[in-house]
């Protein structure tokens, strides 16, 4: 009875939970509510994924207004995969956040934190679920505005500045996206993405459509922190509360990648973006820039959170590299890395949160010998780091394997070589951690530390475990990704 409403319930539950939290003004209740809605969203997402697994599409008309006049929620294998990812990360992070937030955010702001968390989740799920161009923009703004607040809650005063910069850049990005959607509306007279796709061929050669593509590309690139538009990201990730960093790093940029894929493949169509325009080449160059430059910057960082933030920029480069190769394998690699990197970075930032809980600032100079007092956390970071490098048996290897395969499919063996060489840079910055944590003598502050509480370690290690599990059993991830890739390539025809 309730099942037909799943596509909208997914979004509405966290959206409604937010005002209730504000009204109740209790941090504890807010946390319980946030946990409940996150797990409910995960349950719904899983059932939706099961529904569309056979390739069918679930279309839900809001208020029973049939599309294209009303707002349509449209779930296919691409966004069902993403919905599961986002709600999964949210469910794990929310469990973790109680202890972490208690330490990092003033008590009277706790309920606001969870309100914003629920709103952010609603926004991200909304972006993924909706089939309407303007609705997409609205949810993008909901998720962005709430994430600005979440970042500003960080205890470092620079968090305010970081949040402000992200606000300016994010708003520019959102504006560009709405301009792009507006131009498309102008040309096609519809906001429904599927409808838009069917009408675009008649006006495809016009400059307005090209301008729309340019605005959308730049706007979305800003949101997904594609090099060189990543400049807001390192500070935002470094100064946000640990739980927020983990949540945003694992979901926000990934949802933006989804938006990019949706517009490129489902709306404009693969041939218009990649064959008629040099989009593949541009994306390729920017991705390589991200992979090498951001990784090299990461090598020189003093602050671990910033280091892994730059590593995120580099890893996003791998995702867009897969997209730029414009093939089924490349797209599969990109999508699978989207999932895999979310797990890896989620795990890493959650574990860094354990350090932050005990230490405050997580800099290389003050984590010397920390593996002796916090062995569980440290070993988790090592495993996550191995996944970043792409050691066999971790998810990172799976992504890299398909990327290299896609590069060879295109006959670009030099590109394959660059991909694997860039992983040596990841090795260097992961090694810096290993050296500091394992091979240095702990100083007095470190020697007195205790291991993080179980309620933080268990969620973090769930993610670490997932990094290993999905590195061995790739049926779900690679299978899901290749189906999603096939769906995207088909929808563009």
């Amino acid at each position, binding site marked *: 009875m309730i099942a037909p409403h799943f596509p909208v319930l997914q979004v509405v539950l966290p959206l409604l939970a937010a005002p209730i939290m504000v009204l109740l003004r209790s941090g504890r209740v807010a946390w319980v509510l946030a946990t409940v809605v996150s797990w409910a969203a995960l349950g719904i997402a899983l059932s939706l994924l099961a529904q569309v697994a056979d390739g069918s599409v679930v279309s839900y008309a809001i208020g029973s207004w049939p599309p294209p006049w009303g707002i349509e929620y449209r779930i296919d294998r691409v966004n069902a995969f993403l919905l599961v990812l986002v709600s999964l990360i949210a469910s794990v992070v929310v469990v973790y956040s109680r202890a972490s937030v208690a330490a990092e955010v003033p008590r009277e702001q706790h309920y606001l934190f969870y309100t914003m968390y629920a709103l952010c989740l609603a926004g991200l799920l909304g972006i993924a679920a909706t089939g309407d161009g303007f609705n997409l923009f609205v949810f993008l703004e909901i998720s962005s505005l709430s994430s600005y607040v979440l970042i500003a809650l960080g205890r470092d005063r620079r968090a305010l500045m970081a949040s402000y910069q992200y606000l300016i850049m994010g708003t520019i990005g959102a504006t560009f996206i709405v301009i792009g959607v507006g131009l498309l509306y102008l040309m096609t007279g519809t906001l429904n993405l599927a409808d838009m796709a069917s009408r675009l061929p008649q006006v495809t050669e016009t400059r307005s459509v090209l301008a729309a593509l340019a605005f959308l590309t730049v706007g979305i690139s800003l949101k997904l922190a594609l090099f060189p538009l990543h400049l807001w990201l390192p500070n935002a990730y470094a100064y946000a509360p640990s739980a927020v960093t983990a949540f945003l790093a694992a979901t926000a940029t990934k949802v933006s990648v989804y938006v990019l894929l949706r517009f490129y493949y489902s709306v404009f169509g693969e041939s218009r973006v990649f064959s008629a325009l*040099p989009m593949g080449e541009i994306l390729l160059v920017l991705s390589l820039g991200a992979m090498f430059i951001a990784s090299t910057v990461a090598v020189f960082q*003093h602050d671990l959170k910033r280091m892994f933030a730059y590593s995120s920029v580099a890893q996003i480069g791998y995702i867009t590299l897969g997209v730029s190769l414009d093939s089924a394998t490349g797209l599969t690699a990109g999508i699978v890395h989207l999932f895999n990197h979310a797990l890896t970075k989620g795990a890493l930032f959650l574990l860094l949160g354990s350090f932050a809980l005990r230490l405050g600032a997580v800099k290389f100079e003050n984590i010397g010998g920390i593996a002796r007092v916090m062995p569980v956390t440290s070993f988790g970071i090592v495993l996550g780091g191995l996944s970043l490098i792409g050691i066999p048996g971790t998810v990172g290897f799976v992504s890299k394997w398909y990327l290299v395969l896609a590069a060879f499919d295109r006959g670009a063996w030099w590109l394959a070589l660059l991909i694997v060489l860039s992983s040596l840079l990841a090795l260097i910055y992961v090694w810096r951690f290993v050296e500091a944590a394992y091979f240095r003598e702990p100083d007095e502050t470190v020697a007195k530390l205790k291991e993080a509480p179980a309620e933080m370690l268990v969620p973090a290690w769930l993610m670490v475990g997932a990094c290993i599990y999905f590195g061995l059993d790739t049926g779900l991830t690679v299978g899901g990704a290749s189906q999603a890739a096939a769906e995207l390539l088909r929808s563009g025809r």
Partner: protein
Amino acid sequence: MSNLLAHPGALLIAGAVGLIVLRGRVRTAVALIVPLVALYVAWQVPDGIAAQARFLDYEIAPFAGDKLSRLFAIIFAIMVFGGALFALNQTKALELPAAFLYGGSAIGVAFAGDLITVFVFWEIMAIGSTLVVWSAGGRSAYRASLRYLMIHLLGGVLLMAGIAGHVAEFGSIAFGSMTLDSPAHWLILAGFLINAGAPPLSAWLPDAYPEASWSGMVFLSAFTTKTAVYVLLRGFPGTELLLYIGLFMIFYGIVYALLENDMRRILAYSIVNQVGFMVAGVGIGTEMALNGSAAHAFTHIIYKALLLMSAGSVLLMTGKSKCTDLGGLFQSMPLTAACGIIGALSISSFPLTSGFVSKSMISQAAVDEHMLYIWILLAAASAGVFLHAGIKFPWFVFFQKDSGMRPPDPPLNMRLAMLLFSALCIVLGVFPGPLYELLPYEVRFVPYTGAHVVTQLQLLLFSGLAFFVMLNYLRRTPTITLDVDWVYRRLLPPLCAAAASGLSRLGETFSAAASALSSRLVAALHQHHGPEGVLARTWPTGSMALWVMVLLLAYLLFYYL
């Protein structure tokens, strides 16, 4: 799954875990029994695929056997046993487990039926061997182990890219023979060759191995390079390029070993030299040559381990490893000296030792293929081996001047290990039949013909002649203590001396240039990528926004053109 339990490599890796946990007598028992069980199991592995699994989209065969893989697995297991026996009194607790991991993964490569499994064990091997170097302790071992790891991971990523390319091109993951017709295969070959110690990256081997402990280097000498020989035998038999790479390695090893003063570095260069013979054999590519390479890998593991055990014993008992500091040790370490001499004779392919029955196959293959120049070069190289490893090592360490040191022979377990491997060297040399049985192809070769023996003896005697004639000349003036500089200046022809100083100057210039270049590179990287660099500092919001506009305009420009 149950088949995987009978995987000798998995057994050794499980043994490594046991060695970390256990202490005392139980640990000793595990260290000795597990390799023997692995040896037995390796012997029993049947032909064909013994275990299958699914990984990514492929049916992988992590456990598959044939004659070639059994041969290498058997010698690796023997080596782990001998090495463990030798290293029982090693106080560095990490070394033995690391060596088990290392040897187990080498066996894993030998039984890998597909390229992904090869890659996985390849990487574990890199980690295991790094740990062996690192466990020696101390700053320089730590730094050496990092350099070593970097080189091997570089080899690993080349290999991975190549494997992915192979799969993309041919759709098959099976590990079979390949030809150099696609970039993917070049990458795979490059990955393999880095582990073999081939140019231009040969230097990792003499750089890292001598940093290991007295027992660690025994393990290191056996697995990495010989696994590389194994994969070359399986993947690239008959690739002509390998012939020239092998010849280069042979002479590189000889020249640098002759210039070297540290006994373990001499032996490290000599590994490159010996692997060069095997690689050249792979390059010749006939059944005889491939058999020869495989057999030579087998015998080389034993005699090189024996030489390093002898050198390791000296290092342990005296704490010194420079030839100039050593000498005259035969008086108090007779057993070590005798075993070292047996190893030295084997590496020089003296008749009735194991080196003779294997290396002569490679030379014979060159003869069979009418490769005259190759044969001459191989023969000249044999003389060179005799000079640098066959005479130089035992002479300077055990005889020469009297250093005054009177250390006793090493503890019982180390003596037993040396005796075991000495016995193997001689038994294989006298009765090569069982070894020939194990080789991948049918052996139609008789080592002990008059011609073979006489040729080899002539070669050895004449190359030894120079040494001994000079020696007698020295003995006539007993007031002169034999100094290593003196030997270099007088013993070798002046030409060689000139070449030596030239080479070492060249080497110094190169390494100075390389370190200057790398520090300048790091400085340049730091300037732009470091925390205050333009690529990493926090930008004003306005400039960020400017970038957004620039990008938008660029896109519009691209689209409208």
